[in-house]
């Protein structure tokens, strides 16, 4: 078909990826502002096909073709040339071992809410599409976006973070969950006792309560941080400039929400 396709797997991945794009567009319904097409010059098959079939008319692709290519290579490396990644595969990432919230990160990859596959539960394995979906949470925000898009993007990113806290997917970060996260965060430090971590979580929770609810009735109980409260807490931080990963020093990055 397309000249230059070297191996079947890659082509499979590409098909999946195209499907993802279509699905993504369908799901989005509206067409966002599209960015430039990916720059040419890459001789690889993926990018050829990409530039053929997805010239500027297609909006909103998370990352550019070079990045996808890169990510796909990485995906294969992680999965050991399998079509899907399982949790165990993440054990192969040596750098991840030192990360105190390692388990949370790995879990986020399999979280159905992040994968947009359901409202709770964990997937057993993820394929490249899913991998890309997760990665797409870490796009930088484009400066050409209008305010509304920025807000949407921001919300998406925050939702991802929220899901990292809310492990039982009940829509609330309860104190237990919060403590859990804080303990993990601080687990890298041997000097900090567990209970200090807890008192921090408790203090943070209390602060969240005072920020989000304000005056409370005497018999009112703050049950946990909801997503709205979470947004409130994040109000001051411009996450859109912070939560992004430079997958590569890429030229253009199209956006969607």
């Amino acid at each position, binding site marked *: 078909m397309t000249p230059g396709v070297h191996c079947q797997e890659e082509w499979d991945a590409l098909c999946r990826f195209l499907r993802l794009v279509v699905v993504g567009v369908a799901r989005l319904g509206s067409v966002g502002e599209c960015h430039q097409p990916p720059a040419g010059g890459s001789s690889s098959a993926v990018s050829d096909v990409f530039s053929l079939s997805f010239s500027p008319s297609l909006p909103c692709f998370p990352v550019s073709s070079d990045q996808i290519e890169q990510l796909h290579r990485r995906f294969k490396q992680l999965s050991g040339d399998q079509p899907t990644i399982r949790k165990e595969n993440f054990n192969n990432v040596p750098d991840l071992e030192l*990360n105190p919230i390692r388990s949370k990160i790995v879990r986020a990859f399999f979280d159905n809410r992040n994968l947009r596959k359901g409202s709770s539960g964990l997937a057993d394995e993820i394929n490249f599409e899913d991998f890309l979906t997760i990665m797409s949470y870490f796009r930088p925000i484009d400066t050409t976006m209008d305010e509304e898009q920025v807000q949407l993007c921001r919300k998406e990113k925050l939702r991802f973070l929220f899901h990292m806290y809310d492990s039982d997917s009940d829509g609330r970060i309860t104190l237990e969950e919060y403590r859990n996260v804080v303990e993990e965060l601080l687990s890298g430090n041997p000097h900090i006792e567990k209970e200090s971590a807890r008192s921090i979580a408790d203090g943070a929770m209390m602060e969240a309560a005072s920020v989000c609810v304000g005056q409370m009735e005497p018999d009112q109980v703050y049950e946990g941080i909801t997503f709205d409260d979470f947004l409130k807490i994040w109000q001051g931080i411009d996450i859109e400039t912070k939560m992004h990963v430079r997958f590569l020093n890429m030229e253009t990055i199209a956006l969607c929400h």
Partner: protein
Amino acid sequence: MTYRVGEAHSMGFQVFVPFSPWSWLLLLVALKCPEASSDLNESTNSTAQREPNVRFAAAGSEPDEKISVFALDYDYVQIPYEVTLWILLASLAKIGFHLYHRLPGLMPESCLLIIVGALVGAIIFGTDHKSPPVMDSSIYFLYLLPPIVLEGGYFMPTRPFFENIGSILWWAGLGALINAFGIGLSLYLICQIKAFGLSDVNLLQNLLFGSLISAVDPVAVLAVFEEARVNEPLYMMIFGEALLNDGISVVLYNILIAFTKMHKFEDIEPVDILAGCARFVIVGVGGVFFGVIFGFISAFITRFTQNISAIEPLIVFMFSYLSYLAAETLYLSGILAITACAVTMKKYVEENVSQTSYTTIKYFMKMLSSVSETLIFIFMGVSTVGKNHEWNWAFICFTLVFCQIWRAISVFALFYVSNQFRTFPFSIKDQCIIFYSGVRGAGSFSLAFLLPLSLFPRKKMFVTATLVVIYFTVFIQGITIGPLVRYLDVKKTNKKESINEELHIRLMDHLKAGIEDVCGHWSHYQVRDKAQRIHRIKRLSPEDVESMRDILTRNMYQVRQRTLSYNKYNLKPQTSEKQAKEILIRRQNTLRESMRKGHSLPWGKPEDIGKKMFLPRRVGLIFRITHCASELFSLRPYPTNLTGTSGRRAGTKNIRYLSFPYGHPQPAGRDTRVAELTDNDSSDSELPSIMFKAHSRAGILQERRLTQEIIPMKSLPRGGKPSHFGYQRNTSQEEHDGRGRREALRPKPLFHAVDEEFESGEESGEETSAIRSRWSGEHRPTRQHHRSHSPLLQRK
């Protein structure tokens, strides 16, 4: 004899008379004395009138006379004496400056210092006094400069710095070069015009002048930025410039001085220029290299100082200084070395040294640099007033103009380029602010003042031009940049201080690093995170080094200093944990004492300490949390919205999330039993430890358990959803009465006290004593572990 005394007296008096109107001025005291002593040189001094015999014994030239009981030798102490007075005067001026609240917002502190210096200079000039030779080349480079640079490097906000390192290096490095050469070359062109009478200033001298005048010192700007809370990248650009600019200018300056010296005897060949360029690179890179090495050495050494923590600050300072000196010995850039050293060791040192040493280091560093800078500024003021000036309109005006033009060119050109590579480019507004923040300072003046007169016959003109540029930028730009920032409405960071944000951002950082690990990319977050993994020293002894490296790496992960609060002159006021403890202990004592006296509610009584030290109930707990958090995150102490007035409100009314056991109503019947238990447990000596340590909190635990059983708590679902345990605090009045006495005695509850209670809720049937032993048993090892925080030593 009497005649001589009278004469001496009158001479002394003559000197005093003209200045008597000003005699309230502190400084005059210092100036009058030398005046007097030099005039009355043949006799000892004028104050010896009370003991004429003694004075004459000293003044008379008979060697076998008695030893003088009272004598004065001002010349001996003159320099340190006057320097001390200068610093003191400057400090007093600063105090006055900050007492009036609106003033610091209006003008930068350097303005004040310069004004004070000019006043001193005027006095010195008016009295024909000779100012002490504080500044000469070796003093400046060996003693005054290093503290300033060290302070900049040590208080660098590491994280945002490395996030923007590309742009910073690009801007600070190239910017300084463009400015230096641009100004130098265009001034050279001006000098070619015969009408200005500048034709004897050659190219090298112009370039040298360009290099020294391009050393910006935007500390005043940083203070403005901090107050206006401008966005982080912009702040970091200026900070990076402040940090690196000095180094680059000084390197350039030294190389050009060398060229000038050489030029005196022979012509400069192209080879020499090439060699100069190579030297520039080597000097810079070599300096950084030295700094990093010394930084790691000192970081390593501080790992073993936990038993002699008194020398911890010493090690930090000595190694920084050593790196400076070692680099200078090899003609490398000591400034870059000491900066790199500070940056490298800071993170590790902060982890290794004790809390008090850390505070000492911080304050001492601030103090040293502030002293250096004060001295330079005052000296600048002093040398402003005097006859050492050569006013050349053309040169001065063109210098001023070129400084602005070249700064504009370098800013807009360099940021145009670097914006191409940035995810979030600098806006035009940002660039305007950067352009406008080119405030010159102590560095430029010192370099100009230290020009060797033999090589620069027109040194006076250079100094004058430098002074004019400094005065212009410090006073006009420094004062107007605040309004400009507000007017342009630069993008701001609205940073609040909250534990939640800290936690979330921390989580996000780890998440980003993790995602990058998963992607297998090496982007700049990772450079930031993992730069220090490169130095794996596997040579020494395998096991120890292994564990040490782990700790270092973990430390990397653990705390990222986020002190954006860079303030050259002040440290943030901090309430240390110790203070908090002390307050609480004292309060506790007061309470107990008032209990003994039979007051039921101690805070009803106007006790002396109780009144003063009384704090909202939750403060203890907040302090504890704050302390933990600031330990972990190096947060500044908690904002007042929790500890302050609203804290009081929140503690009693606002927050229902966690209820605090002290609020639990207790039926009077149980009260006696609880009292027994608590009295046994919390004996006087034990009380503080109950309050502040996790160990031996069993007393409270028991008590609270009892409480918990009694309170009718519908809203405490024990098993299923543990986090909903917001106990109610229905403080009904009849219970309140019975509780009053106990509440007074009960120690401050802590959060973990609540936690433990909650956790052990299911075992409520057990004997309390058993629980107590269990808890204490559990906590003791933790404490030990905490105390000796070196696994290396533990192993031995």
